[in-house]
């Protein structure tokens, strides 16, 4: 019952929404509108649930001093700070319980929440994503080795895609006339082979 009821409920609701697409009249259109509102409200609660789950999971790891618990502690402190600053002085136009924090904003240039977001969260987040470049470089060194026909094709494809994403790629074949633009490196694989291959997940 605990498992089957939510499944049956989800199925019935999904079926009703599907039905409303084919019968856009009362009561189905009203029903869909109501269900949309429900969904948005439930999604809002899901964010709260996520935060509770985050606290529970991390607290457990910190309390038991599991492996790398220090990182979890740092995460929890960061989370608590952002939450606290948001509640106390608000963010952007919205004010917090202690007002707008004009004095603090005058001192550091922004509200404390916005300051942390702009000067800590944003650069850290962009840096972590940028680290992917190192993984890609390392993977390229190991993965694109010619071992056979298929791996040769993969390597040629990769090289063309990589060159095509640079200014050099455009320069190399930019002189081609419009009628031969198919052979222009940036267009070459993206227009013809690459998309279907990626879409169909053909394993090499």
């Amino acid at each position, binding site marked *: 019952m605990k498992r089957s009821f939510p499944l049956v409920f989800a199925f019935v609701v999904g079926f009703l929404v599907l039905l409303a697409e084919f019968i856009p009249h009362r009561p189905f259109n009203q029903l869909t509108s109501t269900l949309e509102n429900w969904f948005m409200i439930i999604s809002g609660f899901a964010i709260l649930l996520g935060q509770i789950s985050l606290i529970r999971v991390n607290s457990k790891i910190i309390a038991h001093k599991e492996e790398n618990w220090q990182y979890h502690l740092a995460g929890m402190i960061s989370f608590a700070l952002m939450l606290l600053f948001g509640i106390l002085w608000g963010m952007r136009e919205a004010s917090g319980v202690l007002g707008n924090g004009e004095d603090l904003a005058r001192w550091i240039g922004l509200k404390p929440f916005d300051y942390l977001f702009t000067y800590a969260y944003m650069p850290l987040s*962009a840096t972590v994503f940028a680290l992917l470049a190192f993984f890609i470089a390392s993977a*390229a060194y190991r993965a694109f080795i010619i071992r056979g026909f298929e791996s040769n094709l993969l390597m040629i494809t990769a090289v063309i895609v990589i060159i095509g*994403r640079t200014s050099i790629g455009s320069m190399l074949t930019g002189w081609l006339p419009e009628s031969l633009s198919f052979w222009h490196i940036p267009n070459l694989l993206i227009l013809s082979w690459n998309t279907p291959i990626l879409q169909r997940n053909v394993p090499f």
Partner: protein
Amino acid sequence: MEDGVSGYTMMAYDLIENTAAGEVVLISFDYDPSTMTEIQPMAEAQIEHAFKLNQKIVATALWPMGVQMAEQAFNKVLLDYPDKVDGTDYVNLGYKVGGMVTIQAMGRSLPDVYPTDQGGTPYAEIPMLQGIRRLKDLAWISSLSSGTPGLKEWVMVARDSYGVPVTGGCTAISAPGFFPYVNEQRQLHGLLGGLKAASEYESLIGRIGPATIKMDAQSVAHMLILLFIAIGNIKAHLIRRRKAQ
């Protein structure tokens, strides 16, 4: 076609370029700071392009941090357009949870989904939104997206269900997944895929922006990866030859 500008970028540019002044358009900020290096230049370029043509911009976000991304992009472009007024020329309606369902609800009624803007001004009191009741009232939609919910959801609902022209931008790595939507049915009116497309867009609107500047770094990094591939292959070839001997 402009030299070095891909067809996808040109298509996205043409959609905005061919929209009349005074039309209300929507840019959805469906990304967060992790991908802002690639996507933020697209946002700035599209805002500037729309401002240049006196189009009115509605900013929304399907990602919580998209709100801050929108705010930063507007603040930067507004330095060159100080006469643009919040509520008259642009408005930030903020983040709304729910992804695709939210877009569906926006298709039925925008004021129901966004009763106020970010600053708390009621929808009915925002001058530029008078007469804008649902997605169909918008001239075009651009989703700058780095995942789900994002561009795909806008295509599925706004374009396919409500017939509003949709364009967008995404990271280079996810661009191939969106190219099939740029088809005969125009499910997607062009696509800005990664920093290169952003730099192409900047060149089309005559702006030397962050994407153009960052392209040098990206080109060097890509050439470095090519060098690694070459070294890897030479090394593998030498090992194979040694084993054969």
